[in-house]
């Protein structure tokens, strides 16, 4: 087990190196000159040149990459092109809204999807099953931003139950904090929900066909006991995997929801910094998101090995 963990940890290194290289190349290839953007539209060419030099953008690309990776090795993500904030500090500030949103969305998604999936799997090929499945397909067919805007229109503009957008930190009032997060969390949850529901249903169908379930039923156990103790326990493994995948899907969805609901999170920081060609922030944020993504996948794999003693590596 320990060897497996070590092996998997080592295997993330080349993946992360690829991410670093990729992000660096993409960012440098993007048209638009941050020095010119910083200097403003009427700045003389000498000013632009001076800014470029101060940012180190006049050096060869390979040197820029070397400097960035050297800093990274020391835990330094660099300084924002605008405003002179440390990238790490910016990310830290934006972390709380994003994590709040992700946790709330995942809780909503799992809380809805697992029972729905069990129900659909148990009543496979019934009308209930078809209904749940249609709902699930709809869940990953619907564009997140559109769903978000429709929910804003219904619950914020018309019914006035919740604020339309924005974010309040938890220390300024828990109720406000929840009210601001509930719509975006529900919106984001829908994507992850679809995935988890399908997977739960599929595994339930598979386990309910196993011999030991037939034995359990034959010896007269209550259906509830059969479902929860015999079937669900054995179905837990793939469900755990897909919950992990759900988190990954959430990360992608968050970029859009944060932008729709004007939540000052990581995704919004990233979209804004792409628009303003803020190289260090784009690089740092993408790297952080990718690291989280890679580690979630790692955790899922490890939990697999932990939950199923038959799996040996």
């Amino acid at each position, binding site marked *: 087990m320990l060897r497996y963990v070590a092996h998997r940890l080592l295997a993330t290194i*080349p*993946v*992360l*190196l*690829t*991410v670093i*290289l*990729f*992000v660096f190349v*993409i*960012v440098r*290839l*993007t*048209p638009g000159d941050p020095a010119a953007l910083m200097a403003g539209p009427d700045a003389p060419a000498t000013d632009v040149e001076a800014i470029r030099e101060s940012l180190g953008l006049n050096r060869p690309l390979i040197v820029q990459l070397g400097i960035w990776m050297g800093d990274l090795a020391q835990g330094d993500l660099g300084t924002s092109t605008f405003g002179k904030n440390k990238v790490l500090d910016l990310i830290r500030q934006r972390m709380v809204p994003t994590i709040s949103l992700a946790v709330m969305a995942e809780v909503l998604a799992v809380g809805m999807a697992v029972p729905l999936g069990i129900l659909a799997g148990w009543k496979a090929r019934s009308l209930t099953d078809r209904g749940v499945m249609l709902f699930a*397909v*709809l869940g*990953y*067919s*619907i*564009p*997140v*931003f*559109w769903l978000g*805007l*429709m929910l*804003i*229109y219904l619950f914020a*503009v018309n019914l006035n139950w919740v604020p339309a957008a924005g974010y309040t930190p938890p220390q300024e009032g828990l109720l406000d904090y929840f009210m601001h997060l509930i719509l975006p969390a529900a919106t984001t949850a829908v994507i992850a929900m679809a995935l988890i529901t*399908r997977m739960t249903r*599929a595994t339930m*169908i*598979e386990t309910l066909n196993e011999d030991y379930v037939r034995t359990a039923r034959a010896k007269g156990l209550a259906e509830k006991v059969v479902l929860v103790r015999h079937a669900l326990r054995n179905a837990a493994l793939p469900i755990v995997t897909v919950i992990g995948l759900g988190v*990954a899907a959430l*990360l*992608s*969805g968050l*970029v*859009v929801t944060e*932008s729709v609901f004007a939540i000052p999170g990581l995704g919004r920081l*990233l*979209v804004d910094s*792409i*628009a303003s060609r803020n190289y260090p922030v*784009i690089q740092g944020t*993408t790297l952080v*998101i*990718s690291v989280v*993504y*890679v580690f979630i*996948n790692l955790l899922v794999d490890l939990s697999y090995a932990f939950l199923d003693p038959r799996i040996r590596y």
Partner: protein
Amino acid sequence: MADQAVRTTMRRSTMGIGSLSVTAARFVKANPSMAAGLIIVAVMALIALLAPVLFTENPNAVAPRERFTGPSSGSWFGTDVVGRDVYSRTIYGSRVSLIVAAAVAGITTLLSVVIGLLVGYYRWVDMAVMRIMDGLMSIPAILLAIALTAVFGGSVQNVILALCIVETPRAVRVVRAAVLSLKEQMFIDAARAVGVPTWRILARHLFPNTVAPLIVLATFIAASAVLLEAYVSFLGAGVSQDTPTWGSTMAQGRQYLSRAIWIIFFPGVFLTLTVLGINIAGDGLRDRLDPKLRRRM
């Protein structure tokens, strides 16, 4: 039961017995949801093809005096901030979405077959290529799509190129997985034993066995491409503003949400229906082509 009906339907149709309408009716009866999906996709394709004759006007024609008029008999889906007809923009918007879907699905499938066969068969290629693919996959799809479109610039071709880069790693994983399990099978050993050259093993023995999962994969890539294109243009990085797309029409209506919901509502309904149609058809295809997956999904 249902499978039986499908099989008979297929046999009849290949033998040329029974009229087309009977075959179609049987197909719908045997696969109601798949038929629904296919019909939605077909209708969308027709809409895209026939856009100019579907009572549309120039989707870019500005009429400031008629801005923000709600849906009416004159403009079915209302008008936007500069008085452009939302109905016409929605109908024409289907063109970009469907072109992107078809192109990305086609190109990605082709690319992933070639890459997937090679990495599945040769271990040393696998090591190198899969690390790159893993790296690409660990950047969230929407982000990668936005960043790449920003690099390439906003034209339909460039959006297609960007989305192909986003989708390929996932597709390669599917082909690779199929090849890895196939190449351990007896018939590959047998082919190698009688001296079949490697390229022929790849082309004649491995490739045909990956076709079924690939067709299914292609539909899901198409659905994902439609969504990603909309995300990218909604976030302002996609196809240039002169071409009406669902995503950009909605992006422009976003500020006026409380005043003119129709600018966002109608393109969104079309977008959702299209993706839903492709996904349902894909689910049906998977059930028919890949009975093993049927139990799992």
